[in-house]
């Protein structure tokens, strides 16, 4: 039944899109076996996080390891919320990660478009510079960066995370690639012939074409911002500005003997919103990739 539904829902799709596959035959059983193994390896730690999060602390050291969720998840969830203002932390993380994701897509798309499709003096030199910045281990810049943030008065302020996080060399690199391969020069030329302004061409013609890689970049930026803890730990010192990862650290260090149970409960709770985003947008994103977004 499922198979039939799937078939009917996907077949017309593949008909109108460009040819999607190198083979007309369905995959053989070993492909499924291989994929199943990969999938199990990928999601097992995630599952196990929940298993440990639903048990008490000692379960992590059980031999053989626990494989089935225990009864404590709900109690430990309450305990997490009891120890820190976790709701507030979730909200803060949501604000930070959303802003960074949106900003990064916008700024990277702008710069990527220019590097891919416009001509201006020193373009290649500037692009090499962008790539080079990826190679510098940024963590060491943390002290001058922090001095800067405190001069701006942004300590304990979410802007301290959002503004520096909003541009990345990776994003520019990625979007340049997307525009370069996804948007034919003819399309831009045609728009110009039709009298579209430069920015209008970018916004209405080129950007929609690279929707899928933009979404991928946005999702990765979101996940990265959500899971980042090194910098937030330094610039956020007050409870009402804590992001989820800083709150997690607080929970960890209140139970001085690492209480793996509650720590994992908190980690699961911190990952749930990410998972929701992933489930909601993930299909579109991997679907987007399917449509041949990042063309080789």
């Amino acid at each position, binding site marked *: 039944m499922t198979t039939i539904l799937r078939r009917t829902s996907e077949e017309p799709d593949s008909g109108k899109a460009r040819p999607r596959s190198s083979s007309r035959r369905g995959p053989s059983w070993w492909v499924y076996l291989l994929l199943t193994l990969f999938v199990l390896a990928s999601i097992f730690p995630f599952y196990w996080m929940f298993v440990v999060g639903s048990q008490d602390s000692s379960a992590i050291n059980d031999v053989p390891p626990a494989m089935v969720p225990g009864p404590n998840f709900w109690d430990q969830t309450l305990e997490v919320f009891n120890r820190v203002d976790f709701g507030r932390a979730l909200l803060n993380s949501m604000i930070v990660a959303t802003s960074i994701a949106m900003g990064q897509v916008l700024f990277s798309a702008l710069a990527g478009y220019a590097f891919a499709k416009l001509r201006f*003096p020193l373009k290649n030199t500037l692009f090499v510079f962008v790539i080079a910045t990826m190679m510098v281990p940024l963590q060491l810049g943390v002290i001058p960066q922090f001095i800067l943030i405190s001069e701006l008065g942004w300590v304990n302020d979410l802007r301290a995370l959002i503004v520096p996080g909003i541009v990345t060399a990776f994003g520019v690199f990625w979007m340049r690639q997307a525009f370069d391969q996804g948007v034919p*020069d003819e399309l831009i030329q045609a728009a110009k012939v039709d009298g579209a302004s430069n920015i209008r061409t970018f916004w209405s013609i080129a950007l929609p074409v690279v929707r899928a890689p933009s979404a991928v970049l946005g999702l990765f930026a979101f996940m990265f911002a959500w899971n980042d803890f090194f910098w937030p730990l330094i610039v956020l010192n007050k409870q009402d500005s804590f992001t989820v990862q800083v709150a997690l650290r607080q929970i960890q260090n209140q139970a001085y003997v690492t209480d793996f149970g509650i720590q994992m409960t908190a980690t699961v709770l911190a990952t749930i919103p990410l998972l929701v985003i992933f489930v909601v947008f993930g299909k579109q994103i991997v679907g987007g990739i399917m449509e041949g977004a990042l063309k080789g």
Partner: protein
Amino acid sequence: MTQTRALRTKRKKSRNDLSGYFYIAPFFIVFGVFGAFPIVYTAWIALHDWNPIGTQTWVGLDNFTFLVSDPRFWNAVRNTFSIWFISTVPQLLFALILAAALNNALLKWATGYRMSILVPQVTSVLAVGIIFTQIFGREFGLANYLLESFGMERLDWQSGVLSSHVAISTMVMWRWTGYNALIYLAAMQSIPRDLYEVADIDGANTFRKFFHITIPQIRPAIIFTVIISTIGGMQVFAEPLIFGGNSNFTGGSDRQFQTLTMLLYEQGFGRFKFGYASAIAWALFVIILIVSIVNYMITRRISRE
């Protein structure tokens, strides 16, 4: 027809468009303030004996001359390259295989597979660390359990050079294989169908098609992933740190898995020697630069064949 039009377009496009600066300005301004300034400052610090909450004395290039003679630095270089190599090569191969397996329109549950292999990217590093430390534990670890059930001797994964590198590489591979696979998949999806059809007529088998059509066609994607995993691999930090446990920057009792970024942290945040740490940062930068260029050239040559 398309051909001529493309030619014409190229010619027309050749005039400069200064509005390009407007597009790249936001990136360069924000990056200039929050990225470049700290980096340049780092170069300045590297010329000092610099304790951020103590004394700061100008020492010229002393930090760099010490670096060259410091066995810990070369040890970290060795470890970084070894972990990078052990993790990157199988990772990209697995990703290629995975992408090839996913690249089939008749594959059932395709979206499910594609999403599942991205799950490692969502999982928090903290959880990953706890789980893998468990797997490679000396006493109760799953890896040793498997070794024993195959009749081999159990290993103290942490204390050996190679075994620790393999364990850390496994963590890196686990996190990034799915991601790379999706990039390859995306590239494979857009290979024109007719290429394969022509090959079919010529009677080429699956493997021939894979090596002579698929690989050359997804070359840009391969270069992209190689560059990204080189840059990431040279800066590998979280995995070895977690593997060492107890937030220990030294990477094992004989520094057997201390990477360059860990040494950088040890000297900076562990010892407050920011001058020396900055010198390490710049050395790392140069190494990444060289490796990326070499990589780029090799990858281009290989995938062109």
